């Protein structure tokens, strides 16, 4: 491995900017770190270059641990967005800088300089000053300069950011050719997904300091594991569906995908399906739809001609069985439009114009593994529901996760014991406010099928640390999945806290340590989530309480296997939580009828 990063963490004013990043990059690989601005990708690159320190973690280059090696001794070439050429030096002096510092002889410096200038196609410009060159030429000089001392690793920090499209294209090709010719391991940082696709052998997507997913461009595009990657890499429609045994079903009453019926016995789960705009088919009627997967009918709102492709935005008809878009594109909950792009041949076969009614089919959908599909605010009356739906943390989370907030008025919450009328089953994540002791609310929700319950105190801000705990090993997988889903959208550190009884004998303690390791490796293997682990002793509720009180800005995620565990073991936590608390409830399954693998 050329570059090995192990659990890198860098905090800035207490908040993690690089959050537990582990990554391995192979020899000669062109790796692209992709993420929105502020996702920590540049900080990570600077840390690899040795220009910024780390709070935690190790960096190895070609098997050599360089965590505590200064930038000048790391043997790394770095190219900056704004070139960072030495303005008072000529091109030749700039390129020879690294050699001059190493006291390389003049003849050798000259030879190397000419070789590098040829490599970046700038022969003959040796004696120019940077100010006399165009932006593209300056960046070529910067690349040549970064390669002069034959670094083992080349790091490029948004090298095309300041260049216009045409020049970008040429420089991209040059850099890719140089990289192939030298076989040098390269990391490029960018926020431009097109650039990432064009250059990368492998892409790593970052958000809120976390490395969410890594993979080949095609794989990440067609089979993203996370909602963020799905929407960040190209356009995506996120559609709420019900996951049955054989694929997603849209809406309440629609026929399941591929026309087959639901698997029996399997409990349907609400899921989020990713449908790329180019996988949407538009037709006059259901009969003329060439793909089998009917989605809905809708009205064309807008058609944009973009050259090779046509982009359309479609408002879905509000039938009772209409599918629900998981997110609100653009302006809040109101305008949710389906995006479709159509190639020339599709446009010729069926021309559309705004106001036209069309039938929509889905050629291909990809179901996300994410367990958090939607938030449903639950309150005894509509005004409470409204104010809870406007809770800053919830609004923040839902907009980051591109998840809808549904409202549900549940008078039973006020008097849970009053009656046992039939209520519609809960789906998605239920959100309730703290109104005194939350135990009765939670118990009621669990009885009515609530699987994830988020309890929000009135003044809760975005957490910096998320504590994870489960009372029962059978809740582990689900809790980790939910935690991973939420942590991808928070700038927070994840800590798994295991609590053992006060006087645990040494032999039993080793089991506890094994549990910690299991938790960590499952989080990493199944969800790409890096967590830290802690062991505490005592009564679970009290130990957690103490840990939460150590510093402000916590959130707690607790996995339980039965409602009784909640009322017995964790009652103290529910008394009046001052931090956001997310309960993940998964009944222990009888081995006889296992859930269908989805």
């Amino acid at each position, binding site marked *: 491995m050329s570059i090995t990063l192990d659990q890198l963490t860098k905090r800035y004013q207490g908040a993690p900017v690089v959050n537990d990043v582990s990554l391995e990059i192979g020899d000669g690989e062109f790796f692209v770190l992709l993420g929105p601005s502020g996702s920590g990708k540049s900080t990570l690159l600077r840390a690899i270059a040795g220009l910024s320190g780390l709070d935690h973690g190790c960096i190895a280059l070609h098997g050599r641990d360089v965590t505590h090696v200064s930038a000048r001794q790391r043997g790394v070439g770095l190219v900056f967005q704004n070139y960072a050429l030495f303005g008072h030096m000529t091109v030749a002096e700039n390129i020879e800088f690294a050699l001059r510092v190493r006291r390389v002889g003049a003849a050798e410096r000259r030879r190397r300089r000419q070789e590098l200038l040829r490599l970046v196609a700038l022969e003959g410009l040796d004696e120019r*000053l940077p100010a006399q060159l165009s932006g593209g030429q300056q960046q070529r000089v910067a690349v040549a300069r970064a390669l002069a001392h034959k670094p083992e690793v080349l790091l490029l920090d948004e090298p095309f950011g300041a260049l216009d499209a045409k020049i970008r294209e040429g420089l991209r090709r040059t850099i890719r050719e140089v990289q192939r010719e030298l076989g040098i391991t390269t990391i490029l940082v960018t926020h431009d997904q097109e650039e990432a696709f064009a250059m990368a052998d492998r892409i790593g997507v970052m958000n809120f300091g976390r490395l969410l997913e890594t993979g080949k461009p095609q794989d990440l595009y067609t089979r993203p594991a996370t909602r963020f990657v799905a929407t960040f890499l190209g356009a995506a429609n996120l559609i709420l569906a019900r996951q049955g045994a054989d694929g997603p079903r849209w809406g309440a009453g629609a026929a399941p995908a591929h026309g087959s019926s639901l698997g029996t016995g399997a409990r349907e789960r609400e899921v989020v399906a990713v449908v790329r705009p180019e996988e949407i088919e538009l037709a006059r009627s259901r009969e003329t739809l060439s793909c089998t997967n009917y989605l809905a009918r809708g009205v064309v709102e807008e058609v944009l001609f973009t050259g090779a492709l046509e982009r359309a935005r479609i408002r879905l008809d509000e039938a009772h069985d209409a599918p629900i878009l998981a997110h609100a594109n653009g302006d809040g909950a109101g305008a949710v439009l389906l995006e479709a792009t159509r190639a020339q041949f599709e446009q010729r076969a069926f021309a559309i114009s705004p106001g036209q009614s069309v039938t929509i089919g889905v050629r291909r959908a990809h179901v996300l593994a994410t367990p958090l599909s939607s938030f449903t605010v639950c309150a005894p009356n509509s005004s409470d529901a409204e104010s809870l739906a406007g809770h800053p943390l919830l609004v923040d989370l839902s907009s980051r996760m591109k998840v809808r907030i549904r409202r549900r008025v549940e008078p039973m919450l006020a008097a849970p014991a009053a009656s046992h009328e039939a209520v519609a089953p809960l789906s998605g994540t239920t959100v309730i406010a703290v109104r005194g002791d939350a135990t009765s609310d939670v118990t009621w929700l669990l009885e009515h099928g609530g699987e994830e319950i988020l309890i929000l105190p009135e003044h809760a801000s975005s957490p910096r640390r998320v504590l994870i705990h489960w009372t029962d090993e059978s809740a582990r997988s689900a809790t980790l999945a939910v935690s991973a889903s939420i942590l991808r959208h928070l700038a927070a550190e994840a800590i798994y806290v295991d609590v053992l009884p006060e006087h645990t004998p040494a032999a039993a303690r080793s089991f506890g340590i094994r549990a910690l390791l299991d938790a960590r490796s499952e989080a990493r293997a199944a969800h790409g989530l890096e967590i830290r682990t802690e062991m505490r002793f005592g009564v679970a509720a009290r130990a957690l309480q103490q840990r939460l009180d150590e510093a402000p800005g916590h959130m707690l995620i607790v996995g339980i296997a039965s409602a009784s565990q909640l009322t017995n073991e964790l009652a103290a936590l529910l008394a009046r939580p001052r931090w956001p608390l997310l309960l993940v409830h998964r009944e222990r399954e009888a081995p006889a009828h296992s859930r269908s693998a989805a």
Partner: protein
Amino acid sequence: MSDGQPTVLPGFGLTLGFTTFFLSVVVLLPLAALVLLAASTPLHQFLDAVASPRALASYRLSFGGALLAACINLVFGFLIAWTLVRYEFPGRRLMDAVIDMPFALPTAVSGIALTAVFSTNGWLGRYLAEFTGIHVAYTRIGIILAMTLIGMPFAVRTMQPALLEVRRDLEDAAETLGAGRWCVFRRVVVPAVLPALLTGFTLAFARALGEYGSVIFISGNLPLKTEITPLLIVIHLEEFDYRGAAALGSVMLAASFVILLAINLLQAWGRGRRVRREQ
């Protein structure tokens, strides 16, 4: 030349006219009068005033002191500018404001203040004299100190914007290329701010040379020892020896002109070398 594009201020002719007028009235005319007065002095009288041992000693002190003060300001002004530009610390703004104090203070006040601190029974001077035997007030050290104080803001304020221009990236780049700290400083930072350093040096020097108010308080004004040229001029004036004063004045004028010209040529040469290399 005006390139025909409308600008905020009215036409080129008008603004150039004002520029010439003000320069003439405020700078050139008085200087011309000085030179004329000196030129109309009989030669022996001129030489008496200009080349007397007392005058020669005062030149040495004035020019030597100003040069030394400018050197001190070059080094410490750079350090102060660096600190203010590169670091964020509580009290930074306050410190930034304090730099300007010598600008605003009447120079006599600075002189009195320095004397109060450094005289043999002053707060600091007392201990300096007792433990190190160094006397600041009424010696050349005191003169240089006053000159440094007066020139400091000029040095700092010219270097600050230049240092702001030196981006962190340049140093980072140099570091990844294998340069040590000293090397980064010498090869990257200093060359980038060299013009500003020279300008700061020049301004501090010019200011120190012309300084009168604060120096006379702390210098003790002993002829041949701690008497600066501007003071000698004032002494001539007090004796109603206007020609002698003008003669000394024109020598100072000529000398500072030569020095400033030399520094300007140096800068132009530096630029020229770059331009030549570009071709």
